[in-house]
């Protein structure tokens, strides 16, 4: 009898952090302690969260595999399922089908300089890899994080941003689309700030995630800055249902965003003529 990939694990919410007016972070543990203990995943992999009676939606596993006390998911309230998730409280149960998809090719990033470019909730998948790299600090070169949101109230992981800003081995550049009086943050759209920071492409990997329009311009600017297609990594989103490459929705040609992604290099996207 083969394993049933459609049945989620039951999990309980341990903690909820309100990041912004529309984004909440949920820390959950699987109800079955042996499954929680045995749960393994790679940075970048995703999970389908179920609210029974409403449906499922896909979120990156936000916590790194080096910290497995709980599984973290950040959820932006947008549609039916995310609204239902936002209405859950600590102690409530939901379903988790994870890990799904591929992961950041961190092995090939060892010894290199890393530039993270994120916008809004796009910081969620980047956080997984950032923490993973910080937990394996010696394996990676200097880390630069460029992160922007509409206003500073829309930043996710405000506590961690503070920690990363204080580290000597991480360069953190924060920006906002529109500045607010009194807040000492740089103003400018993320792609523009990227051009201003102008990271050098030599021995550097660039990883970006955020709203599609931001990713589009960031990719263009990275290419102009001299980054190779294989050194530019991003994550894609689509309407997903099965999460295992069967239901036919999320494919780009013969590749499924749920199964062969969501992590892709620009080289892959270009070879498939995919336009963001």
């Amino acid at each position, binding site marked *: 009898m083969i394993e049933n990939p459609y049945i989620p694990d039951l999990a309980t919410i341990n903690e909820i952090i309100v990041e912004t007016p529309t984004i909440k972070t949920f820390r959950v543990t699987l109800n079955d302690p042996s499954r929680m203990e045995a749960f393994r995943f790679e940075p970048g992999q995703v999970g389908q969260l179920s609210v*029974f*009676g409403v449906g499922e939606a896909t979120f990156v596993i936000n916590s790194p595999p080096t910290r497995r006390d709980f599984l973290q998911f950040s959820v932006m309230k947008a549609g039916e399922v995310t609204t239902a998730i936002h209405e859950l409280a600590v102690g*409530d149960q939901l379903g988790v089908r994870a890990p799904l998809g591929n992961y950041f090719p961190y092995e090939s990033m060892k010894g290199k300089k890393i530039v993270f470019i994120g916008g809004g909730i796009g910081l969620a998948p980047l956080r997984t890899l950032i923490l993973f790299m910080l937990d394996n600090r010696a394996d990676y070169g200097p880390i630069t994080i460029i992160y922007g949101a509409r206003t500073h109230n829309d930043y996710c992981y405000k506590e961690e941003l503070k920690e990363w800003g204080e580290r000597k081995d991480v360069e953190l550049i924060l920006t906002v689309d529109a500045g607010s009086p009194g807040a000492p943050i740089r103003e400018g759209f993320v792609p523009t700030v990227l051009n201003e920071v102008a990271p050098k492409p030599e021995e550097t990997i660039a990883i970006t995630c955020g709203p599609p329009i931001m990713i589009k311009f960031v990719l263009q600017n990275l290419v102009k800055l001299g980054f190779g297609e294989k050194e530019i990594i991003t994550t894609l989103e*689509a309407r997903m249902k099965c999460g295992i490459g069967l239901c036919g*929705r999320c494919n780009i040609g013969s590749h499924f965003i749920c199964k062969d992604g969501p992590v892709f290099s620009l080289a892959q996207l270009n070879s498939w003529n995919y336009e963001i």
Partner: protein
Amino acid sequence: MKREAGFIPKDGWNAFLASLAKRFNLYVPCREGETILFQPYHAESVICLDRPAASAPKGVIFPQSETLFSFELKKKAEDPRKVDVELKSEGAPQDTAIVALRPCDARGFSILDPVYMDVDPYYRSRREKTTIITLACPNPYPGCFCTSVESSPADKSGSDVLVTELDNGYFLEAVTEKGRTILDDNAIQDGAGYKEEAEGRQKAAHDRVKKAFSGGKKVKISQERLLSDEFWEETTAKCLSCGACTYLCPTCYCFNITDEQTVNRGERIRSWDSCMFPHFTLETSGHNPRTKKAQRFKQRVGHKFVYYPEQYGDLGCSGCGRCIRFCPISMEISKVVAKLSEEGEGSTKDAAEGARS
């Protein structure tokens, strides 16, 4: 030793079906008004073998809607504001048989197998419990193009038994071990003596099927045309996005998963969906990567003739022609593939203009 070939005289056919019905949940092509469709067998069934059924019997193994699991929400005794969730999986399928489907229908199952067998326990358990007894076609029907995809009116792939109609009876060939078990029946005569006649009929039928495009499984799709927006816009101008093609198709397998709940219990069900519907890929943000019917039809044709072959090494279409026969605006997938394939002469622009005819 189990027989490889059997024979049933014309007047023994009904008894054969009745005896199968004792051992299996039997599905047969029944006539209802002017429509032929697969329905569970019962003694009063009006069985029609004149022409293929309107829809493929795909739903017997891959149901139109099925419960993946049910859930029940129970309030916790110690804190009624909290609920416990209980999940239950459905029971096992019974022994089933489908009789008198056509080779293109059976081939449809062999196209679905590599997708689902090793991943999907629901499909797998039904497939393992189903015996497929296929009826070879004596001639092509409007729209048929099975030989273009290297299938044939007597293709055995996906079948357990292949039945060929002769003047005075039916010739049965065992294709698999399950098939041999079916032929292991005292009511079925030895068929060895009819083999030659049957093969003659099969070949004659094969030769009558017109080729829509050449290259068979290796049909070379022009990358330039596949990626040409103009080609797809011209091709799909007349498409209504009605979706009938996908629901009748023996190889379409896109599905939806929805939760259906009443008060404190419910089910998560899988149901057929169609890549031809505008909202198939609609995201919560409002963005839709396939908002135009040109993009959706490109996905349908691309899936069957490019993406599925890249993943599984075979064409994802069995050439049954139903989508052509039932399309309200005569969209011909076989013609589109012919235009897409590198044998289509001229530039992409010419092909795009030709696509409108």
